[in-house]
């Protein structure tokens, strides 16, 4: 119970900091909007509706992935500024609570961006779900959590690195391949609706398993990362 209270305190603090500065959400919104517009111009969604439908899942996730990276890279910057991280290290509280609070805050930020981008994406790419559209309510949060939990962890890992801006995508993208594959395929299956309806379930299960494994590993290893010199 006390652990959950600690997580909530970290989460509320990060939400409050973002509310005051709006650094993360504004940057992500601008970036993802740019990607969606550029791709919609490049692929002519009205001229090639079938092709567009087949690649739209990939475009949506790529836009969100790139946008998330810009925010995740900055997610620990507030802790490093003014050496607040040292104060966090001195607190007699579980470090994993700090990690979980920050990951949940990042999830909230990316979710806000998804809620804004999704309708625009539907308009620009002229798509709607031909399969089971409700499945997106499972695919989107599971896929977002997969990006956010690893991104938050690897951003912390690169805190003391000189090229941390470069380090995050270098570490995050390869390790996220199974998750990206699952979320893109599941989303494409839902949007095209022309495959075996069992298929999206497989990808969702894979995504859920990925989330459980990587969340556990990140929580277990975060203390080592936090106190590394």
């Amino acid at each position, binding site marked *: 119970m006390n652990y959950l209270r600690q997580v909530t305190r970290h989460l509320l603090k990060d939400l409050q900091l973002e509310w005051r500065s709006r650094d993360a959400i504004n940057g992500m919104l601008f970036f993802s909007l740019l990607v969606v517009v550029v791709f919609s111009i490049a692929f002519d969604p009205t001229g090639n509706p079938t092709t567009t439908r087949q690649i739209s899942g990939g475009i949506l996730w790529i836009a969100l992935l790139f946008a998330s990276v810009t925010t995740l890279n900055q997610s620990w910057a507030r802790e490093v500024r003014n050496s607040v991280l*040292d104060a966090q290290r001195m607190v007699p509280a579980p470090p994993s609570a700090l990690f979980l609070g920050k990951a949940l805050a990042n999830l909230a930020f990316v979710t806000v961006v998804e809620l804004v981008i999704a309708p625009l994406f539907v308009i620009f790419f002229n798509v709607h779900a031909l399969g089971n559209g409700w499945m997106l309510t499972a695919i989107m949060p599971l896929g977002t959590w997969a990006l956010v939990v690893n991104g938050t962890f690897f951003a912390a890992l690169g805190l003391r690195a000189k090229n941390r801006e470069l380090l995050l995508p270098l570490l995050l993208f390869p390790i996220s391949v199974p998750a990206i594959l699952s979320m893109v395929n599941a989303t494409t299956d839902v949007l095209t609706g022309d495959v075996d309806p069992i298929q999206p379930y497989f990808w969702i299960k894979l995504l859920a398993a990925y989330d459980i494994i990587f969340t556990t590993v990140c929580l277990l290893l975060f203390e080592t990362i936090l106190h590394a010199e």
Partner: protein
Amino acid sequence: MDEMVLEKAQAAAIATQPQTAAAELREVSKVYGAFAALRNVSTSFEMGSCTMILGENGAGKSTLLRMVAGLISPSRGSVATFGTTPQEQRGRIAYMSHAPMLYDELSAGENLRYFAGLRGDGCGLCTGSPEMALRAVGLDPHLKRPVGQYSQGMRQRTSLARVLQSDPELLLLDEPFSNLDVESAEMMVTLLADFRTWPITSGPMAGIGRRTIILTTHQAHLGAPIADTTLTMRAGKIASVLKREPAI
């Protein structure tokens, strides 16, 4: 492997001794690349003492303080606080660095309430609450401005309030008087002298222990009235140790 066995033996030897030292360093060295910040330093800080560490820039003062805080580990030798590792004593130690260690976007009160909440057990009995801690350092607890808009001196005082509210038995202060005007610095000295008299009300030393302060400074005249030990460092080594009765 031998080094690990030796470190464990040293830690065990420290643990079996009667606890009179709040912090103890044994043959400690810290090397950053080719630069040795500390060279074979051995010293102890008695419980209830106030030690002022003097020295030029790069003498190893901050490294020593961060090591006692458990924020960095020695390249060689061992560090113990209250008989065990600093990491095991986090609830009893507070550290104030020359950076404010506060969130710029939050007000002083919000910062203090956040850190007090993380401790779980609320605030120290002597400072009572984040509001009282802020009043103790001469700041208005109802100030809504974010810390990022404070002057350096106000940040420094908020930082002091942050460490005092945690009710520490061992208080580590890195350059606490820098950025402060004369009046604020003198007020801080009086507050620190008062802090030493606050009773310890929780933990293993409740009712019997006394509070310990270790501070580094370039302004010796400010620290001198409360310090009973003056330790001078030069090139990563302890050059001299001077003990005397504090004026306050």
